[in-house]
């Protein structure tokens, strides 16, 4: 496997598109997941994922194989997502319910009610959609840290490098991000009892 990847990288560096597509196919799903969690919709996710893969292809000649190819690819993905999110944020393109969480840790807005029926039994897909709504509602800076951590599994140091923030900031954003999501779920618990059973097992304060 490792040898195959090495071979594929070598061929890709020489401009072999087929080899590159084969090479990236192992990482494509994770790249796409990350892009979708970050952007919150299919359209932007496709654009960002494609952009990230194109960046990988263009930068491939500079890849020296000192670290794993996967880590390198995810780093590029993180950077691409960050750039796009910051661009959209600056352009005020970002969606509906933002600024729920500020650095002071305050929740200022309620997320949109998903119009699910109370006591509804949730399937896997519904849970996923609900969580995505919560993620989308996070402040972009928190969203990025959360997705890089939970979806891509980057280390704190890698997240700090990717986003040009300190390790302390990464730690505090992960902490607050998780707590914010949990508070949200607790607030919606009457709508999603199944989910609550999973999450709020011990989280409910006395």
């Amino acid at each position, binding site marked *: 496997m490792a040898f195959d990847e090495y071979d594929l990288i070598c061929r890709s560096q020489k401009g072999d*598109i087929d080899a590159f597509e084969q090479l990236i196919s192992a990482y494509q799903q994770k790249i796409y997941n990350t892009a979708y969690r970050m952007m919150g919709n299919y359209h932007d996710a496709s654009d960002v994922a494609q952009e990230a893969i194109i960046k990988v292809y263009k930068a491939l000649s500079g890849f020296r194989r000192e670290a794993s190819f996967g880590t390198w690819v995810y780093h590029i993905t993180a950077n691409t997502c960050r750039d796009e999110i910051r661009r959209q944020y600056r352009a005020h393109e970002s969606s509906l319910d933002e600024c729920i969480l500020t650095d002071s840790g305050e929740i200022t807005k309620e997320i949109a009610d998903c119009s699910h029926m109370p006591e509804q039994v949730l399937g896997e897909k519904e849970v996923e959609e609900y969580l995505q709504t919560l993620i989308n509602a996070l402040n972009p800076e928190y969203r990025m840290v959360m997705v890089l951590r939970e979806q891509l599994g980057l280390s704190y140091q890698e997240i700090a490098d990717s986003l040009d923030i300190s390790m302390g900031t990464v730690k505090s954003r992960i902490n607050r991000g998780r707590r914010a999501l949990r508070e949200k779920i607790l607030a919606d618990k009457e709508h999603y009892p199944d989910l609550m059973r999973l999450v709020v097992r011990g989280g409910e304060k006395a």
Partner: protein
Amino acid sequence: MKCQEAKELFPVFIDGFLSPEETQELQMHLGECQECRKDLESLQELSHILQSMPDIPIPPEFKPALHARLVEISFASKTEVIPFWQRRLAKPLTIAAVFVFLIAAASLGNILGNTNHETISIDNTNSVMSNSAMPESDMIADSGVVSNSGAAVDPGLAERKSISSDTEMAGGGVAFDAATTASDESMSAGYDQNVERKVIRNASLSLEVPEYQEAFDKISNVATQYQGYVVSGSSYTDEEGNISGGYISIRVAANSLDTALENISALGKVQSSGFSGQDVTTQYYDNEARLKQYRVQEQSLLKIMEKAKTVQDILSVETELTRVRSEIESLEGQMRYLTELTDLASIDVSLTTPAKDTQGVSLGDWSDLGSRIAAGFISSINWLINGFANLIILGGYVLPILVLILVVVFGWKRIVAVRKNKKIPPQ
């Protein structure tokens, strides 16, 4: 450990980055504090849920679109020209440019030290080759010859110097001023400052004037105005008997020469002009010395005459006295002539009038077709040569700037490249 401290460790603990010591401390606290345990458990559960969220189905059109972009990019990178010369030629080009720049800078010193200019210009109507500014060093060398031969008696040895500046001027005696001053300066070199210099100055002018007679009269006036006179004049006529041109030679006070020349130049279009100076200082003072000698001889002869007793003696003294006196008169005459020559400068003016329209069949523009074609040809060739030279000179001007631009561009590219490397992690 307090609850606040413990909660700060939660994320690190959940993500598995906590050190063994800290983990131990945290677990001690968790054993005591139920609230914190519950808090941590729910956060762990949340993290787990987030991490186990199902994969997002990749849209079917994603792969084909990606493939198309990859093909497009690899095609573009193959046909791109810039990377080639950036990668392959940038370094050698930069090095070469720097070398050429250094060579150019080094040779600049040589160019500055060598200020020999020669300009060739072509007028539309008449091709006048003008040789401007005779190198000054030549003049100084000439004056050196003059001073060295100062003791010579023969008037022919007095160096004749001429400075010619044939320029096509539209009027004004700037060139004359320059020539006169330069000549004066060169002549002063090597002479005792107390000795009055005796220089015969001649100037010649070729003027095109609208009216011959009017110009002639005005030049005569200039002569009298500056304590001079008309030496000679002549005129010539064309086939129909009209005066078409002439020649006038006048003399004016030497110190008014420049002003007189300016006045005359103003009468018409100066087509050529010349200036010459003849230094007769040595001749003059030599004559003066001989005169003194003869005068002394005359005096002693007169004394001898008084003492003379016999007719024989008187006659022989008388003969000698006559010879001495005639010598004295001859020398006095020569000196008067020299004084007059140096006091009054001569100006020779040749006058021409523009060709008048005639009633007969005229060749008009065809008359000097050959010479004009030649002039045009030369003009064009010169234009080409000058243009080429200017192009090379322009290259010289542009080169340093080009080098600077290259350096800046590549410096900038480097910075950008470094930044890009920063953005995209090395591995």
